């Protein structure tokens, strides 16, 4: 997984490598400085040699400025590398998502993908910055300072070694104990937020049932639990500081005692003692820093994992090796199709009961208008999604224009089979921008024609900016019925051989719905049209109607014949006598 992430550095690899090198240079100087200070004291101040004071002083100043340069450069390069990594991760993930089939998208969910592209990337960016800044610095400082100490006085340095070992094992113990508790804290924290989210969206229900007090109590209970759990975790973590201080002070006192004896015995100098004191602080501080970073990084591992999942995901549907680019006609054939929502990569061992579609075998002639009707969960949407190969069948075959859909180039197939999805969205941009999704180089005239057929032209003409009207994200500024008609127009822009309307006129009033269907048959003759609808009125005029029930085709015949022979169809028809609904007009 780490390999996957590092592979995304791309051209920022240079910065990612240079930054630690710069840091290394800074560290070398930082480690040497206390030694030069000991020279300044022993060879300058103690013996009253002004010349040496100025020489060593000048040297130190130069060193400090050089360190400044390296430090700043290292930081800048680290920033460059980490922001570059973040940008690359975002882009590569985004590109990868574009290759995903519907099944892949379903597996991650829209919210899951958004989190990965935003929050998770930010987490990894911050962690990566930490790693190349501090993980390169702290261990070097630690080792460098230790080496310098041994050079100054090996015996005294043994004090550090003892302190480091004790401190290190204590910190590790603390982390190992605290981390799992923190993970539970985060989980509980998510639960708490879920309950807030529920209350925000369901505030009308809460208020209608006068359950404010009840919800308060539930929330308080959960929040108090979270507080106690946090305290349990933090109680362990705050042990860090006293452990650290004991180590520092132990070293100080030990150094003072043994150092004084050595100086008196003339085996050590005052200057060296001063340097040793500096190194104590440096060594222990860096040890502490490393432990902190270790905790932070291990917490951002979850984010890194989630990103790697996207990058490593294999798209379920890919183009065939030698694809067909031409769809001859609009005929559709289902041959003994069984279908279940499951990953291609998973071991497929579904029993028949888990199929969403079972034993579908039917043939639609080019140019026919077909209605599809059935209850929720009867498999209507799954059925039509197979035609433009949004999902692949598990058994059997779906043929369009006489060829298996798996033989076509995906783009060619989807340009010939235009689907208006049940959950359709418009994108921010003008109406024209949205329509040109169907055909990038369409003239305004072509757009208008499609809108006329989709009964959208009339309301567009009423907008002050007409076709230049700006559509907000998701089409929030047009009504549901208007949005659906714009989506139909957009689908028509492709001049498809097959048009599939998946419950696409549910918010359009009955009269306009009828007008739209009439326009389709009149102005786009020869196009195979599949209409999924809840309303009998929307399908009863179709050439033939498919009645779906529980993943099977219950009947496939004309309206009149179905009324005679099919019980389900008759049921639906009768509950909707007269076929009228009080739908919102336009």
């Amino acid at each position, binding site marked *: 997984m780490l390999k996957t992430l590092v592979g995304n550095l791309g051209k920022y690899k240079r910065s990612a490598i240079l930054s630690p090198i710069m840091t290394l240079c800074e560290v070398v100087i930082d480690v040497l400085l206390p030694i030069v*200070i000991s020279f300044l*004291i022993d060879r300058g101040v*103690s013996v009253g*040699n002004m010349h040496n*004071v100025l020489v060593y002083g000048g040297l130190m*100043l130069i060193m*400090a400025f050089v360190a*400044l340069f390296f430090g700043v450069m290292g*930081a*800048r390069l680290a*920033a460059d590398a980490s922001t570059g990594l973040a940008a690359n991760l*975002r*882009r590569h993930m*985004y590109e990868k998502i574009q290759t*995903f089939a519907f099944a892949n*998208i379903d597996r991650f969910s829209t919210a899951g*993908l958004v989190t990965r592209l935003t929050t998770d990337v930010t987490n990894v960016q*911050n962690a990566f*910055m930490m790693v190349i800044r501090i993980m390169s610095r702290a261990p070097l400082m630690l080792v460098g300072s230790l080496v310098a100490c041994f050079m100054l006085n090996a015996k005294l340095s043994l004090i550090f070694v003892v302190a480091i070992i004790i401190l290190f094992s204590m910190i590790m113990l603390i982390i190992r104990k605290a981390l799992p508790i923190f993970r539970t804290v985060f989980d509980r924290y998510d639960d*708490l937020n879920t*309950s807030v989210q*529920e209350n*925000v*969206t369901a*505030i*009308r*229900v809460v*208020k*209608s*049932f*006068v359950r*404010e007090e009840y*919800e308060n109590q539930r929330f308080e209970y959960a*929040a*108090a639990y*979270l*507080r106690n759990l946090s305290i349990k975790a933090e109680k362990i973590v*705050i042990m860090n500081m006293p452990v650290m201080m004991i180590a520092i*002070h132990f070293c*100080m006192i030990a150094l003072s005692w043994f150092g004084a004896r050595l100086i008196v015995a003339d085996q050590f100098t005052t200057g060296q003692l*001063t340097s040793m004191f500096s190194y104590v602080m440096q060594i222990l501080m860096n040890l502490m820093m490393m432990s902190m970073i270790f905790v932070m990084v291990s917490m951002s591992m979850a984010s890194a994992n989630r990103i790697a999942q996207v990058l490593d995901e294999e798209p379920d549907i890919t183009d065939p090796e030698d694809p067909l680019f031409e769809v001859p006609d609009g005929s559709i054939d289902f041959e003994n199709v069984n279908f279940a929502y499951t990953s291609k990569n998973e071991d497929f061992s579904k029993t028949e009961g888990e199929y969403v579609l079972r034993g579908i075998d039917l043939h639609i002639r080019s140019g026919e208008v077909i209605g599809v009707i059935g*209850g*929720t969960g009867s498999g209507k949407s799954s059925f039509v999604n197979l035609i433009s190969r949004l999902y692949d069948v598990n058994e059997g075959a779906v043929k369009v224009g006489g060829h298996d859909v798996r033989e076509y180039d*995906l783009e060619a197939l*989807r340009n010939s089979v235009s689907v208006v*999805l049940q959950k359709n*969205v418009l*994108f921010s941009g003008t109406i024209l921008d949205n329509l040109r999704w169907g055909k990038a180089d369409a003239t305004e005239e072509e757009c208008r024609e499609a809108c006329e057929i989709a009964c959208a032209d*009339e309301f567009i003409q009423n907008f002050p900016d007409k076709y230049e009207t700006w559509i907000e*994200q998701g089409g929030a500024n047009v009504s549901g019925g208007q949005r659906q008609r714009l989506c139909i127009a957009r689908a028509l822009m492709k001049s498809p051989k097959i048009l599939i309307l998946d419950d696409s006129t549910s918010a359009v009033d*009955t*009269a306009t719905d009828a*007008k739209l269907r009439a326009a389709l048959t009149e102005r786009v003759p020869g196009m195979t049209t599949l209409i999924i609808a809840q309303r009998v009125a929307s399908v009863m005029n179709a050439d033939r109607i498919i009645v779906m029930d529980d993943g099977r085709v219950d009947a496939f015949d004309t309206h009149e014949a179905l009324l005679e022979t099919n019980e389900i169809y008759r*049921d639906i028809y009768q*509950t*909707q006598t007269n076929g*009228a609904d*009080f739908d919102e*007009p*336009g």
Partner: protein
Amino acid sequence: MAENRAHQGPPPRRAGVSFKEVSQIGPVLKRVLAYTLSKNKVKAVVVVCCILFSAFVHIVNSMFLRTLIDDYIIPLTHQAQPDFSPLAWRLVRLGVLFACGIIATYAYQRLMMYITQDTMLSLRKEVFAKMESLPIGYFDTHAHGDIMSVYTNDIDTLRQMVNQTIPQLLNSSVTIILAFISMLILNIPLTILTLVMVFIMIMMAGKLGGLSSKYFTKQQMALGKVNGYIEEMMGGQKVVKVFCHEEKAVEEFSAINEDLRASASRANKLASMLMPLNANVAYISYVLCAVLGSVVAISGFTSLTLGSLVSFLTLNRNFTMPVTQISMQLSAVVMAQAGAQRVFALLDETPEDDDGKVTLVYANEAEDGTLTEAAERTGVWAWKVPAENGGEPSYVKVRGGVRFEDVDFSYVPEKQILYDINMYAKPGQKIALVGSTGAGKTTITNLITRFYDIQRGQILYDGIDIKDIKKSDLRRSLGVVLQDTNLFTGTVMDNIRFGRLDATDEEVIEAAKIANADGFIRRLPEGYHTMLTGNGANLSQGQRQLLSIARATIEDAPVLILDEATSSIDTRTEMHVQAGMDALMAGRTTFVIAHRLSTIMNANCIMVVEGGHIIERGDHDELIEAKGRYYQLYTGNAVTEG
């Protein structure tokens, strides 16, 4: 939508602030401090004492080098027979002091932990309770994502402020003051030099902060753009696939992604420079002091012993480190400021007011119709109307009669929504509201529940103005089933019991049977104890709706409001739901908003609402006869208008 800001995650780190930004954080800091102190006074005092003590130990620690060198080591080197016992004794005393210092530090950290967690707990509770008390209008005017982000992001920034920023600011300030005094005692010229260097550091940090905040704003804007784009495109990813729009989408994304990278890189470069810059300028300050101190010591210009010099150098570090820390903490406050303000803004919102005096009580009804208050559920409910002069309250039986008299309503003063609404429902009647979206049907029902208050006219419930009824009791007497079913995380049993908390398991099951939900619940893996999560994600829309009907059934309210309760269910499922619904409506006054004919046809009265007016009223046959708007809607001959 609901996840707008909640998903954007933590803002990128940033170090360094401009002086202008620092000067603006006073009020926020003060309020956070006041909030924290209001609940933890004693603990806070102990914490301050501990911080003072540990800062003192810290300074003693750095001054000790001077004592060690000047008072012990140098004299010892001159002794023929060095006597180490005074030094040993001194070190033991020092060890004891250090031990006290460690205890003080640990004590303050531990207390801070409790202060922080308790403050967070009470803050969360208060924010949540406040949110629950706010009028519906608040939720209409604030994006759900923004409200959520108060919990997911903003409260957390406050936690950092309480837990880290405030104690560290205190700690650093005390250390600076003590170090400054000690430095003055040791040597005045060197102190001045140190001050000059610190001044340079502060200026640099301020300058860098100003620059970085400019780029930081740019970065935030670019980030907002990228996140917005991601949310929009991920939401429409399936449409992208259907239209083979992948390449174009990558192209557009690459452009704004690169914009973000460029501005993030600039902002982060500046921000991350602060730490090495400060550290190394501190080093330069240290070196300058060492050189100048050595020169002074050798020349004997002022009395500066070797020990004093070494101690001074340690103090120099102790002085510059807290300066760096303060600048880091201040920038943390600047970043957290907006979040803290949002938390307090929510806390400062005015809750829904409720000055109703009439309450809902259980009652016993005598043969002659007189009502007496009962302590337990009797099946009879009464309105308890307090007498004006504080005398005996009178009782009115709850029957479920609702009357609108000349009601006008608008959400905002300029835009009137409802005009002159007059209507009545006799107890047990079914009133249907039909009309196009936005005509004002839902608004009418929201006035009955007093989610909004009317501007003119009055609404009477059993002859009592609903303004005089306590809101919670008014709502308790109204059962509501909405189009969007909202279920809560918990078992099926919990969700139905939400309608009446003291209902027994048997009563819950009984209600589910009435609502036609018992059958499918029993088929769930764990029946009534099946856990529901994510708004009942494991149920179908129809099943969710059946549960919300069962929830309203168990509430057993005399008046029902059904707002498009069956709209999102397909016709076949609706047949099941309808049966449950009919059982629920029996004997209750019902206001139903629907567009399915089957739901409306048998209503006692149908109101056709258009543009905020009731334009037609009557039963089905009358309205068909009248050949007006209802007839148009019914026959499907509606004139389409844009």
